[in-house]
């Protein structure tokens, strides 16, 4: 099998999430089966220009639609942002190892995100809500630089209203009337009623935030291997060949992007790796 070859996918819907963030709802045009796990990603190919790794945010592929939420930043993502419903792109995947959703069953979950609307975390939430009975208490902690950076606000509000789900927000710089915390996302840990032995943490965001959060949660009693985090590196091939995503001895595309903290602790946040 040729793992490099994309399949054709068509944009069946498009939603705007913020001025520079949009979601493409994609459907493969061939009949071959496709399934994925939360935390995995696809390589999306903009015709004639190149490929980028993008997480799958939908909860499952059951309806045949794969949702990707993309920030228009550089060459390819800005190019993708110009596409409309009906346009076609290339897609190959899913790649990598996702969140340990099976091992986390029967546990409370803490999801910590930092930076801008962390797509890999959204897939966890969708998954948990689809299989609500399998998981305990769900805490969603989101930290951003500025409150303007919060995307999916309505979604977060809706999640906050669900039973046994708490949503805590923190912003370094807040807009007037902000009811969340001002400061680092890790400060929100004080507000949690942690059941250390029965909790799994899943982190996603800047590495220094993840490093601090993992350390903090560990000090609060979480086992090191109950803490998982999603890494990001340059990716060209997504199959462990091109070498760009190496993080020490790991190929983030294949051995990650989700790692248990002890796997990556040695180099996490070390400049240059």
């Amino acid at each position: 099998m040729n793992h490099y070859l994309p399949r054709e996918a068509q944009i069946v819907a498009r939603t705007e999430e913020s001025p520079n963030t949009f979601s493409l709802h994609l459907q493969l045009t061939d009949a071959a089966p496709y399934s994925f796990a939360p935390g995995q990603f696809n390589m999306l190919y903009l015709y004639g220009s190149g490929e980028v790794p993008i997480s799958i945010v939908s909860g499952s592929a059951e309806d045949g639609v794969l949702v990707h939420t993309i920030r228009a930043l550089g060459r390819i993502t800005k190019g993708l942002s110009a596409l409309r419903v009906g346009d076609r792109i290339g897609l190959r995947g899913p790649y990598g190892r996702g969140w340990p959703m099976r091992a986390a069953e029967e546990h409370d979950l803490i999801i910590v995100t930092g930076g801008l609307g962390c797509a890999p975390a959204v897939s966890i939430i969708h998954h948990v809500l689809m299989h609500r009975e399998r998981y305990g208490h769900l805490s969603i902690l989101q930290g951003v630089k500025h409150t303007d950076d919060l995307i999916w606000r309505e979604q977060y509000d809706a999640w906050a209203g669900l039973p046994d789900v708490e949503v805590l927000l923190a912003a370094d710089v807040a807009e007037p009337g902000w009811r969340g915390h001002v400061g680092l996302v890790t400060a929100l840990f004080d507000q949690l009623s942690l059941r250390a032995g029965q909790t799994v943490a899943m982190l996603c965001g800047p590495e220094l935030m993840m490093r601090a959060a993992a350390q903090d949660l560990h000090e609060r009693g979480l086992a090191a291997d109950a803490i998982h985090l999603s890494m990001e590196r340059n990716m060209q091939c997504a199959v462990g060949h091109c070498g760009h995503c190496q993080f020490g001895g790991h190929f983030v595309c294949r051995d990650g992007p989700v790692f248990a903290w002890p796997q990556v602790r040695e180099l996490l946040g070390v400049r240059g790796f």
Partner: protein
Amino acid sequence: MDKPSIAVHKFSSCDGCQLAFLNAGEDLLKLAGLVDIRHFLEAGVADEYARVDIAFVEGSVSTTDELTRIQRVRGCSRYLVTLGACATAGGLQALRNLDGSNTAWKHAVYAQPGFIHTLDQAEPVSAHVKVDFELWGCPVNGRQVLAAVQQLLFGVAPLEQRDKVCMECKRQHATCVMVTEGRPCLGPVTRTGCGALCPRFGRDCYACFGPAENPNTAALSRRLEGLGLAPADVARRFLFINSHAPAFNEAGRQHYRQGFSDD
């Protein structure tokens, strides 16, 4: 939908980069079918200030007249792309910036220097107006130009190539002339784009594509001296086609002072 429109403008330059377009042959015909060429004197089309989607500018800004023209060109184009070393970094003309002797030369060379409206400095286009994309080279590589055009037609930013010539030299399986012959190659500090043309023909790179990203000119200078180049010769290697590009200017001047101060 209307075809995108382009213009090709000439400033202080030798026309060699425009020739990269004209030499594209079949591809030029294809291009002519894809875009509406509004202004391109070398190809016999003239409408200098027509509004266009992409303006290519060849040549440095070296005269008072060019100062105003470049503003007008910018004003009537959506994307402005510089074409070659002169437009991107000042080119060979910028050599005159080195010792500030423009006026002295003017008086020495011309019978009536009053008619020569040159600026004291020959400067890259980006010193005067916003540039959206830079194509380096003396001359530019035709394939690279067309690839950039195609990406712009797609509405996508062209791929920037900032790696060192050495990378391409190795991909082309050229033999390193520095290692086998001790030639003073500038490939390790120069931007790729030429396809490692010179080393493939057994010549040392003379840096016509300008500085690569993260160029260690100090280490290369030491190596060039180790190969027997006098400081003035090291200076000449850097202060040539892209003497006004900051990385080369700085490296060159360090040796230029040493090399020429007692001349």
